[in-house]
C-alpha cells in the first residue's frame, strides 16, 4: 500500500494516498470541488478549468495536480468562486443553451453548477453561434449547440480494442464532436446509454428518449450539485 499523506483543504485536515490527484483526494474526504470534464476512473484532462484551486497563491487545476504531504489547498474563496462562475458564464455565451427546451435540463451538470453559483446572467455578450443538430447516427442525436468540448465522450467511450468512438473534428471555434465513421457501428446500446449519461450537458441524447423525469424529480431539482458529497460530512 502506498504512503498515506496529510494535507489541508480550506484549513481542514484531509488524508490521501501519495500520488492521488487533488480532486480525487478531495472526493475521498467528502470535499466537493466543482468540475465539468473530470470523470472518476478516467485519466484527467484539465479541459474545463472549473476545478481550479489555489496552492501557495498559485492557481492550478486540481484534477491534474497531485497532492503532496503538507500541501495547503484553498478551494472555497470568493475570488475562486467568481473565477469559476466566469468560466460557466463563458460556456453559456459560447454555445446556445436554451434550457427551457433542453432534454437534459434539471439533470445537466453545467446548469446545475450555474444554479450552485447563482448565475443569473452571464457578464459576457452572447455569441449566438450558428450550430446544427446531427441526427445521422441510428442511436444518438448530437446537439452541437450544447457541447462544451469537455472530451468526456472521447475519453470514456471506447470500443473493445480501446479505440475512442468519438473524436474532435475541425479546430478552434469550429471544433465539434463526431462519431468516427469507421467505428460508428461499435456504438452499442450500452455504450450509447453510457455516452448520454457521462455527457455533462445535453449534447449527446438517445434517439427516442427525452423528458423522462418529471420536473421536480430530476437530479438537481432539489439539491445542488456536490451536496451528495458535502452531506456525508
Amino acid at each position, binding site marked *: 500500500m502506498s504512503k498515506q499523506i496529510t494535507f489541508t483543504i480550506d484549513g481542514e485536515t484531509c488524508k490521501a494516498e501519495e500520488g492521488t490527484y487533488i480532486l480525487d483526494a478531495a472526493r475521498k474526504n467528502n470535499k466537493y470541488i466543482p468540475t465539468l470534464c473530470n470523470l472518476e476512473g478516467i485519466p484527467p484532462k484539465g479541459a474545463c478549468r472549473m476545478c481550479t484551486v489555489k496552492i501557495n497563491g498559485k492557481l492550478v487545476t486540481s484534477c491534474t495536480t497531485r497532492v503532496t504531504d503538507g500541501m495547503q489547498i484553498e478551494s472555497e474563496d470568493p475570488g475562486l468562486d467568481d473565477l469559476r462562475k466566469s468560466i460557466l458564464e463563458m460556456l453559456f455565451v459560447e454555445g446556445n443553451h*436554451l434550457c427551457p427546451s433542453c432534454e437534459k435540463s434539471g439533470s445537466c451538470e453545467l*446548469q446545475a453548477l450555474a*444554479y450552485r453559483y447563482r448565475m443569473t446572467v452571464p457578464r459576457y455578450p*452572447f455569441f449566438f453561434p450558428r450550430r446544427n443538430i446531427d441526427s445521422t447516427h441510428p442511436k444518438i442525436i448530437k446537439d452541437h449547440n450544447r457541447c462544451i468540448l469537455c472530451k468526456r465522450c472521447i475519453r470514456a467511450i471506447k470500443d473493445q480494442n480501446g479505440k475512442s468512438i468519438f473524436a474532435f473534428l475541425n479546430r478552434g471555434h469550429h471544433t465539434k464532436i463526431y462519431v468516427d465513421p469507421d467505428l460508428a457501428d461499435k456504438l452499442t446500446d450500452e455504450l450509447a446509454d453510457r455516452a448520454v449519461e457521462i455527457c455533462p450537458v445535453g449534447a449527446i441524447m438517445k434517439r427516442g428518449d427525452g423528458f423522462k423525469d418529471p420536473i421536480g424529480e430530476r437530479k438537481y431539482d432539489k439539491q*445542488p450539485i456536490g451536496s451528495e458529497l458535502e452531506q456525508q460530512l
Partner: protein
Amino acid sequence: MEKPVIATTSLAGCFGCHMSLLDIDERILELIELVDFNKSPINDIKTFTRECDIGLIEGGCCLDENVHVLEDFRKHCRILVSVGECAIMGGLPAMRNGIPIRECLEEAYLNGPTVRYTNNEKIMPNDEELPIMLDRVYPCHEVVKIDYFLPGCPPRADLIWNALTALINNREMDLPYEVFKFD
C-alpha cells in the same frame, strides 16, 4: 408613505412570465395592498401616467417596437428587472439568431411546409404599420441597463414573490435554490 409603483410589459415573450406572476395565488391580494400598478397588460394601462419604482420586463427585443417600449420603461422606472429566460438571453425566439433574417422570413412565409403550397402569391407581410424585425433577438441588458435578473421559463411564482417583496421592503433577494431554475 406612498405605495411603490410597479409597471410590467411583455416584449418578445409568451406572457408565461405574467401568468407566473399571477400564480402567486392569494398573495395577489397582499400585493395590491403593498403596491400600485401603472402601465401593465394586467390593468390595461397603455402609457405611463407617472414615474414608477419597479419595472418588470418579460421577453427580449425582437422588433424595433420592443426597443422603444424597453427604452420607455428605462426612462420611467427606477429599477428594471429582466424576468425570465427571454428577457435574460433571448429565449426560444433567439433560436433564429445566427440565421440571416431573409432566410427566416422565407422559411416562415414562402418555403415552410404549411405555406409552400398555400401562399401562391408569395406574399411577405410588408405593411408600414408593422413593427420592423431586428437582425436578431437581443437580451434586454444588451439594449438598456437592467438592475436585476430573475431566471426561469417562467420564473417560479415563489421566486417572483421573493424578489418583489425584497425590492419593496428594501432587503436583499435570497434566490432560494428550489425555485432558482432556468426552465
